[in-house]
């Protein structure tokens, strides 16, 4: 069994986002970048499947600028076998990313494709579902548990009502929740070894798929600032304020 795991380079989850004054986006210069957090869970799950003998090969893929390779390199350092970097200098919408991934999948023919359920930058939550749909494959979104069988997988999904279990035929796309597993850290020797693992580079615009963006970003602005209020001295004062000042209880 072959697994493809897709990772995205995003602004680190700990960074306080700053909107650019000219309203064209957010500051990315000199800002710490990392792998999108649930993509780390996707990599971890892929590596675990390999360690358990269920998967033979794990391929990590990313789409993005030159530096996006770092995310693939990180996946290689925790156990992926080889990498693919689809180079693209501009932002590509999830639809375009899904088309690029589909193109690669048609060549690589993985049985399972794993990725995070959502990227924490554009918060779109689309790529996995779009890819699955374009391929005509089944999907398991927001997965917090995966059990791989011969020709299917059982997925526990985190949904608004609680947990849902579905069985999906292979090949399939799974989008991973943060609770799927605990991503490991790469050891120094493995980081060194990862440097020797191959990363194939492809060029997005040469793949023959329509990756034109359909959405124009007119303006990015700061949300209305919420002012901090007051500190109260004790519980009695808090209840009194809620009752008489805020009038919410």
């Amino acid at each position, binding site marked *: 069994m072959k697994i493809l795991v897709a990772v995205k380079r995003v602004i680190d989850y700990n960074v306080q986002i700053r909107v650019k004054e000219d309203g064209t986006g957010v500051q990315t210069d000199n800002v710490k970048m990392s792998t999108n957090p649930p993509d780390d869970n996707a990599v971890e799950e892929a590596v675990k499947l390999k360690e358990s003998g269920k998967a033979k090969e794990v391929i990590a893929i990313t789409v993005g600028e030159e530096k996006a390779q770092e995310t693939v390199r990180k996946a290689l350092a925790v156990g992926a076998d080889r990498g693919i970097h689809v180079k693209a200098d501009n932002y590509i919408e999830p639809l375009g990313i899904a088309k690029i991934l589909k193109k690669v999948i048609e060549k690589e023919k993985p049985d399972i494709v794993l990725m995070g359920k959502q990227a924490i930058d554009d918060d779109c939550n689309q790529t996995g579902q779009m890819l699955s749909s374009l391929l005509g494959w089944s999907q398991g979104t927001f997965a917090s548990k995966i059990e791989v069988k011969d020709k299917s997988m059982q997925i526990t999904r985190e949904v608004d009502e609680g947990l849902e279990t579905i069985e999906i035929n292979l090949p399939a796309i799974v989008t991973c929740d943060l609770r799927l597993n605990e991503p490991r850290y790469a050891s120094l020797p493995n980081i060194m070894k990862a440097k020797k693992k191959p990363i194939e580079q492809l060029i997005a615009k040469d793949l023959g798929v329509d990756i034109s963006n359909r959405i124009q970003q007119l303006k990015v602005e700061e*949300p209305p600032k919420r002012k*901090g209020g007051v500190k109260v001295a004790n519980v009695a004062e808090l209840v009194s*304020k*809620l009752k008489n000042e805020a009038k919410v209880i």
Partner: protein
Amino acid sequence: MSVLVVAEHDNSKLKTFSLNAINAASKIDTDIHVLVAGSKCENVCKEVAAVPLVKKVLQSDSSNYENYLAENLTPLVVKLAEKYTHITVSANTFGKNFMPRVAALLDVSQISDIIKVNDPDTFVRPIYAGNAFATIKSNDKKKCITIRPTSFDPAPSSGGSAPIEKIDAVDIPNISKFIKREETKSERPELGTARIVVSGGRGMQSGENFKLINAIADKLNAAVGASRAAVDAGYISNDHQVGQTGKVVVPDLYIAVGISGAIQHLAGMKESKVIVAINKDGEAPIFSIADYGLEADLFEALPQFLEELNKLNTIQK
């Protein structure tokens, strides 16, 4: 122009957030049709028909739609999409699951999680966990949109009498199968729509200690929420999680107990009308957005809080 709203329901009742989505759709165009795809879902159709903003209800009844599997729902919505300029649904796990599938097959770039409709092509949506708002214009002829329900009021639910049209089910790919759903049953109000939410974080230290939160919630007729840390630690189930990848809530009163206030949590609650923070760490970021902050040990403060509430003659319901 006309707008298709895909209703969320459990085959017997409409989910409240569908009303918020219908209201949002009405900001795009007044010609609103609502698809109810389900199994034995007549009651849901009747509920939708009574919503005055709805012009027509499309009922597609089939056991294939009973558990809203995305692979099964998608061909139906794609087929219906021919007749509409906008295809919309609320941005919760139901809508997020299938709408991108529809969008991809229509070759449309989905617009996720809108919080405002400027005009039929232009929308506002939060990005970076709500730390920036993007105004975007879609150049696709058809638009697939998911709507953040808490950013729109629910549409009035009675007084209308829209016709109900039966729609044939569409072939399904048969590649996925529903096994089971484990729902958390609770007598308390739903987290997404509750007027008051009391949430606990890592500071609660155990699932057992959530009884302190539950007692306050019961007294205030509130829903119980949690930070991701509390869910990850196993103190409480995932359906209680508030935040960037959990639920977004906008109650009149949000009480954050033992929650430090990571940006991912704030993303899910900072639009609440009144925010209370109870935390023993006076430097916790949650205090910077709280209207009322109480720097105290929650294990002392919560029992006192309950006692003070018990002293009140009346509590708003």
